[in-house]
């Protein structure tokens, strides 16, 4: 196949929409524009029917009942609704939430917000490979614990947590288990029954669907879980999330879910081969390190640090042709390097030197070959102009130097 530029390897940020999804959505902007809550005319009926069908498609992807799907504007809203909604609904039972330091900001900042409202939050540290320490998790549970919120797959390093074991611990202590499934759903098999999930946030735009539509799975049986609505209004979505339904978005989400279900096994196998090819080639470079657990992770993600080269400088060498992200502070607004990589125990220097690769449905082998060469060449070029690399090659211990921190 011919090489197609530019190459998009930032699929953990967002994915391109599959043309088949767009095609399914289009009539719902124009011909079938009705409000799914309009019960008295064909426009409303057509919209409601489309939403019902999409709800089945989405539920089917995660082994849920359609009634357990609450549509939201995306995963951030679903994270907020799931965690805040449980905190409020189960206030009489307790106020303690357990989460971990590598969660997405939509979970961490939601927990921080709840702390101001009286929540006690335990932020578990992860092991150096990014995995949860199950013993530490169980020990953190108190009689006030109402919720464990641990993500399914991590957005930066792709590490997949032992969800079944976590849910078993939660069940044993009669605590609800919420998981942010944003990166995992549609990429690897997620089954809310087999995995023992009580609540799960996920979104369409990470699985080749449209932006602006996501869902919160809320279990209805064993146990029946309820969340307090965070937005008041017309009582949509079983009164858990008011607001006129985004019908074209929901239709697209449904189609995207259906395609993921059909193509997941083949796609995951194909992407893991390409990912491994990319990763193995880049780890051939001197002083290149894999971040996160090598086995327990998403098939399309890898995160590598190239010591003594700064991430943003590295991206600049090829970002006209390859779209990637870095854990370097320079690429974020915060001026702090990736908190996820730091949570693994990486020094700031290695966090600054990291690249995150997210392969996707439209990634080709030619693109991976091109990427391997472009990155290797740039790393070598930048090391030639890196004073740290020169010192390293001269055998100078960089920790022995008194750096002028600024």
């Amino acid at each position, binding site marked *: 196949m011919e090489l197609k530029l530019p190459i998009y390897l930032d699929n953990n940020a967002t994915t391109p929409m599959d043309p088949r999804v767009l095609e399914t959505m289009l009539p719902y902007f124009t011909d079938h524009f009705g409000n799914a809550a309009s019960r008295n005319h064909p426009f409303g009926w057509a919209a409601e029917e489309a939403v019902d069908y999409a709800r089945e498609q989405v539920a089917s992807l995660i082994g849920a009942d359609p009634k357990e799907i609450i549509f939201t504007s995306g995963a951030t809203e679903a994270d907020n609704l799931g965690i805040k909604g449980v905190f409020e609904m189960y206030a009489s039972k307790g106020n303690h939430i357990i989460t971990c330091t590598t969660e997405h900001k939509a979970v961490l900042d939601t927990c921080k917000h709840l702390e101001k409202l009286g929540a006690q939050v335990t932020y578990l540290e992860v092991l150096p490979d990014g995995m949860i320490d199950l013993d530490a998790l169980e020990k953190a549970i108190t009689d006030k614990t109402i919720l464990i919120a641990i993500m399914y797959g991590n957005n930066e390093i792709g590490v997949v947590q032992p969800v079944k074991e976590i849910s078993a611990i939660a069940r044993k202590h009669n605590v609800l288990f919420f998981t942010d499934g944003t990166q995992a759903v549609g990429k690897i098999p997620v089954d809310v029954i087999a995995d023992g999930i009580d609540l799960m946030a996920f979104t369409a735009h990470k699985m080749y669907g449209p932006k602006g539509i996501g869902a919160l799975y809320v279990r209805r049986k064993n146990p029946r879980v309820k969340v307090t609505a965070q937005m008041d209004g017309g009582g949509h979505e079983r009164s858990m999330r008011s607001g006129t339904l985004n019908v074209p978005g929901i239709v697209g989400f449904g189609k995207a879910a259906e395609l993921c279900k059909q193509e997941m096994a083949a796609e995951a196998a194909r992407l893991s081969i390409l990912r491994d090819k990319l990763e193995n080639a880049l780890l051939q470079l001197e002083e290149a390190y894999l971040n996160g657990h090598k086995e327990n992770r998403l098939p399309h993600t890898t995160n590598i640090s190239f010591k*003594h*080269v*700064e*991430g*943003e*400088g590295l991206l*600049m*060498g090829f970002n006209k042709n390859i779209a990637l992200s870095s854990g*370097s*502070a*320079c690429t974020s607004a915060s001026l702090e*390097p990736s908190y996820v990589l730091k949570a693994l125990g990486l*020094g*700031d*220097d290695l966090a*600054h030197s990291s690249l995150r690769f997210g392969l996707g449905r439209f990634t080709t082998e030619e693109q991976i070959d091109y990427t391997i060469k472009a990155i290797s060449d740039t790393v070598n070029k930048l090391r*030639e*102009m*890196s*004073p*740290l*690399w*020169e010192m390293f090659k001269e055998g100078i211990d*960089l920790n022995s*130097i008194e*750096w*002028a*921190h*600024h």
Partner: protein
Amino acid sequence: MAYSEKVIDHYSNPKNVGTLDKSKNNVGTGLVGAPECGDVMRLQIEVNEEGIISDAKFKTFGCGSAIASSSLATEWLKGKSIDEAVAIDNMDIVEELNLPPVKIHCSVLAEDAIKAAINDYRAKNGLPELALEEKKH
């Protein structure tokens, strides 16, 4: 955020990358920044008997703007007297490279590197160090 053409040009074709012999008395070396902060610059000057900077080299660990700032600094240093070199202000670099506000610290680092190299040269030659004003990074 898009880079200016001048930053891209310095990044793609950096001027004066390299190393001077730091054991020589007429070579001054400045090493500024820290790996934890994501940028380290090493800037070196070689001063001839007339007191003119005859050569300048750099190596930088950092983003494109940091590389461009140090590359530009070495270009400007060559042929200047020490007094002229001391007068280089970080805002001159900002202007020349069209650096956005979030990258101003790269220019400050380059100015610091110039002054550190000059001070190293002065110390080696028995001259008092320059008093440096503190700039915010």
